[in-house]
């Protein structure tokens, strides 16, 4: 026992940030494991198969399960993964130690918030779904826990910025290394983006405690979507960072352009936030010209993703040709498809292409009318966050857990299989959901399998529904394989540091930042942040001012 403790101590003595990163990430994957369990139940629901009666003593209803699925996967897991990657990568890249006291404070605060919010969720006292639209009113502990959880990311913002500024003081005039630059712009974007949710909580917490008699539903909705759209870039950008920084190297090549990668992150800083009205195209109470302005700005956010598609594809081509691939498409087969990390990214990006095209449909003011709040929408975002973002995290876990712990990856073959199955399951499911939403107007987030009325109404789509059941089974198997691999890896006793990646696989760039005027320009982070704030003030200011000065408070109800 004493020896064991000693070994454990030694594993992280020289790098306490490794222990922090490991704990953050494993807490995230634990949340994801529970949240993902409800995923197949969702797919079965849209296949007309209702398994909720079987869960009855533990979980009360479909909407409770769906609330857990949304909150754990999309709020908890994603944020914890960001707090892992966007602290650990810059620390490694700069060779500096983050402020460990604060880093651990963020971990414990996130855990405290998570546990506080988990109590009402597990007791069916907060079955208000991921969007918690007022006037549906949850238990106060749900809002309070969520607020504590989200605010833990503010500590992460401080830790990342302090790390960067420390490096800057020691290296005046030098261009910030790429991963650190990405982390800095990412955290600044999140600070600006999260304000909507923070302000919303200032209403919802007193309201749920009975101090405020009512809240304005449209204002709450608007504040939610102020954060609710940029939050998708909060999910996506850690995946992009890993794709730019580690994927080219893991695939055997180089990143084609470092300056362009910086431009991408500056564009995300500028355009991520002032776009939320595209979730409110169908809302009364917001004038159409404001919605049109947000349409234009939303279209602008497609630009950095289009650039990313080019840069990542070109970097992969360089890798494939370096590996000996010949001809027009030979480089594709020369990529290391057997490497579970590279495989996860390749498949994730493949799914991201139709997902991005669907996103442009959703962002189009008029086309959105046909798909708003139908299952098309979960079809769309399961390609984006459910496939690319999640697969980037899963793929990264395959090297990062061994790197952090010194424990080699267990069952590599199962890791590869889990990624193929995840991709296949998501592809089938999202395909079916898109058509069910578009052709049959089947509503999202509805317990149709438990409603004979709904099953009768939507019976024409039974072929697509069957596809949902198939995908649910495939995804369940994929999830079991994945979680087995990572937990068996992390919990084994074997430490063989010589068999794992000793360092983060940072990629070399072909076109370097030194001497690039674009890289110099992007380095003025304060200026770009100021411009981002200005854009938000212009795109949101007048509407929010009017809403705040004309509030119509509505009392809360519980209808589940």
């Amino acid at each position, binding site marked *: 026992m004493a020896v064991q403790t000693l070994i454990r101590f030694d594993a992280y003595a020289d790098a306490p940030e490794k222990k922090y990163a490991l704990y953050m990430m494993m807490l995230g994957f634990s949340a994801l494991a529970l949240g993902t369990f409800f995923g197949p139940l969702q797919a079965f629901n849209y296949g007309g198969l209702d398994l909720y009666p079987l869960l009855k003593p533990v979980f009360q*209803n479909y*909407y409770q399960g769906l609330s857990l699925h949304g909150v754990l996967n999309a709020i908890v897991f994603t944020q914890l993964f960001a707090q892992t990657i966007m602290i650990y990568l810059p620390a490694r890249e700069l060779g500096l130690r983050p402020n460990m006291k604060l880093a651990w404070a963020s971990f414990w605060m996130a855990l405290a918030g998570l546990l506080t919010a988990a109590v009402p969720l597990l007791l069916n006292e907060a079955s208000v*779904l991921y*969007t918690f*639209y007022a*006037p*549906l009113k949850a238990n106060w502990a749900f809002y309070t826990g969520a607020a504590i959880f989200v605010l833990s990311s503010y500590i992460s913002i401080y830790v990342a910025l302090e790390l960067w500024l420390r490096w800057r003081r020691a290296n005046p005039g030098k261009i910030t290394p790429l991963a650190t630059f990405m982390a800095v712009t990412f955290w600044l974007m999140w600070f600006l983006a999260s304000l909507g949710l923070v302000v919303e909580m200032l209403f919802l917490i007193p309201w749920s405690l009975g101090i405020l008699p009512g809240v304005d*539903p*449209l204002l709450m*909705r608007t504040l939610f979507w102020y954060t609710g759209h940029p939050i998708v870039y909060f999910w996506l950008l850690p995946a992009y960072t890993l794709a730019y920084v580690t994927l080219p190297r893991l695939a055997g090549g180089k990143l*084609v*352009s470092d300056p*362009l990668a910086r431009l991408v992150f500056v564009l995300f800083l500028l355009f991520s936030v002032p776009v939320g009205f595209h979730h*409110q*195209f*169908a*809302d*009364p*109470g*917001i004038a*159409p010209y404001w*919605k*049109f302005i947000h*349409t*234009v700005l939303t*279209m*602008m956010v*497609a*630009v950095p993703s*289009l*650039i990313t598609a*080019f840069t990542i594809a*070109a970097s992969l081509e*360089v890798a494939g040709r370096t590996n000996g691939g010949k001809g027009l498409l030979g480089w594709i087969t020369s990529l290391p498809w057997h490497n579970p990390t590279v495989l996860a990214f390749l498949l994730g990006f493949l799914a991201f292409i139709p997902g991005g095209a669907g996103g*442009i449909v959703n962002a*189009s*003011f*008029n086309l959105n*009318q046909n798909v*708003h*709040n*139908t299952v098309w929408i979960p079809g769309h975002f399961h390609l984006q966050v459910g496939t690319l973002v999640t697969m980037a995290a899963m793929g990264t876990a395959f090297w990062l857990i061994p790197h952090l712990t010194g424990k080699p990856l267990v069952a590599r073959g199962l890791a590869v299989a889990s990624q193929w199955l995840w991709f296949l399951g998501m592809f089938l499911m999202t395909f079916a959901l898109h058509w069910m939403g578009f052709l*049959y*107007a089947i*509503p999202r987030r*509805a*317990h*149709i399998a438990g*409603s004979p*009325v*709904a099953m009768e*109404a939507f019976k024409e789509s039974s072929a697509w529904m069957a596809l949902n059941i198939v995908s649910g089974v495939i995804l369940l198997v994929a999830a079991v394989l994945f979680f087995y691999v990572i937990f068996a890896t992390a919990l084994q006793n074997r430490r063989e540091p010589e068999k794992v990646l000793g360092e983060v696989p940072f990629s070399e760039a*072909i*076109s370097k930042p030194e001497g690039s005027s674009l890289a110099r320009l992007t380095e003025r982070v304060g200026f770009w942040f100021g411009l981002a704030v200005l854009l938000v003030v212009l795109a949101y200011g007048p509407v929010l001012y009017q809403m705040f000065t*004309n509030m*119509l408070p*509505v009392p809360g*109800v519980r*209808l*589940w």
Partner: protein
Amino acid sequence: MEHQEHVIERYERAWIFFGLAMIAVFIILIGYMMMTMGNTNPVGAGRIDPTKVRTEGEFANPRVEQIGNEYVAYVQAFSFGYLPNEMRFKVGRRVTFYITAPDVQHGFQVENTNINVQVIPGEIAKVSYTFSRPGEYRIICNEYCGIGHANMISKLIVEP
């Protein structure tokens, strides 16, 4: 490598230009279609105290009114249904719906049309549409409104 770098940069610039041009075309098309092709995006038509929706004003009496050649419908979306229970219109006539909710948020989507409204307590939504084909159209609530949400399906009838 030097040569390769220049080739990539040339393609890169072309791709960015293509991307920007594509987005510009999309934005222009959206604006053009909204102006010319019968815009059915809901707009706000004032506000209302949701606690009084059932007792006062136009929505206390949910109904379809024929005014000249057109219809006006005052619709209440509530957990878990719609009032009036059944709406009938003649084909080819313009219908203007005014919709609000007395309790929580709801959806008002009419299948096979472009009508899709987020119904928010406190807000009156207005949307106009001309049904060009007779038949039964389902009205579907597509916003979570409580345990009976999936049952919230109604219909309207367009007569020849």
